[in-house]
């Protein structure tokens, strides 16, 4: 079973987690036109490689956290708490 390291609880089985999609998606401005709002809502980078995501330890501490995951190998390169700065991944990762 894939182990995911929750930044609060430590390494835990994958089934305790919920994937919550790509991280750091900028919201559209309140006065943006429809296309910009649609892009912010629906368009994602669809990266092949390292992707920053939000995950939630739903059957554990319940916290949202940040993760960088490789979308081909499913390897979690790093996880960190909301509000903390992103660890140095040596120039790897997207966005």
């Amino acid at each position, binding site marked *: 079973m894939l182990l995911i390291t929750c930044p*609060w609880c430590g390494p835990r089985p994958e*089934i305790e987690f919920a994937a919550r999609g790509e991280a750091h998606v900028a919201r559209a401005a309140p006065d943006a036109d429809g296309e910009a709002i649609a892009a912010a809502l629906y368009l994602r980078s669809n990266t092949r490689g390292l992707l920053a995501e939000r995950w939630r330890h739903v059957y554990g501490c319940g916290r949202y956290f940040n993760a960088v995951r490789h979308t081909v190998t499913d390897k979690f390169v790093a996880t960190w708490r909301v509000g903390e700065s992103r660890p140095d991944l040596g120039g790897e990762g997207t966005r």
Partner: protein
Amino acid sequence: MADLTALPARVEDFAGLAPLDHGSRFTAAPLVPATRFVFRGREAAIEAATAAFGLALPRTACRAAETADRAALWLGPDEWLLLAPDGEGEAIAAAFREIAAPHSLVDVSHRNTGLDLSGSEVAAVLNAGCPLDLHLAAFPVGMCTRTLFAKAEIVLWRRAVDRFRLECWRSFAPYVHGVIADAALEYTDEG
């Protein structure tokens, strides 16, 4: 007309299910009815809660603190499960009402029910439904966490090397009991 102000008598749902007794290898006993609260709050409220509950809420992830008859289980960085003997709910709620800092205190006494699991094979039985590493090095005595048991959400608390407290929602009790009963078949004393 029914008296809606009176709370129904507290029932521990596991108490109505067949006892699981395989001697020293594995035994599951229903818990006696208890008062349970879920407390959530930030720094100021957490400190005030220590005075209100008479027990310092553990700040280390996945650890429980207990006194003779009360316990606080860390569920998340701002969330605790508070356990106390049956009948103390009113007094606890009254004490928390004095806390000025924003917080929430929800009585889940009737929502939850629990089992006391013990025996030399208790970790193996739990691992039939729970994928956590229950080795003492990874899950030491005093550790507690919310997790999954088969398809049911549970709170698991290690009380001793071969003794756990399992809490789950009451509607999951027959299901959790069934999974445990199946898993425990492997560890009857007769072998």
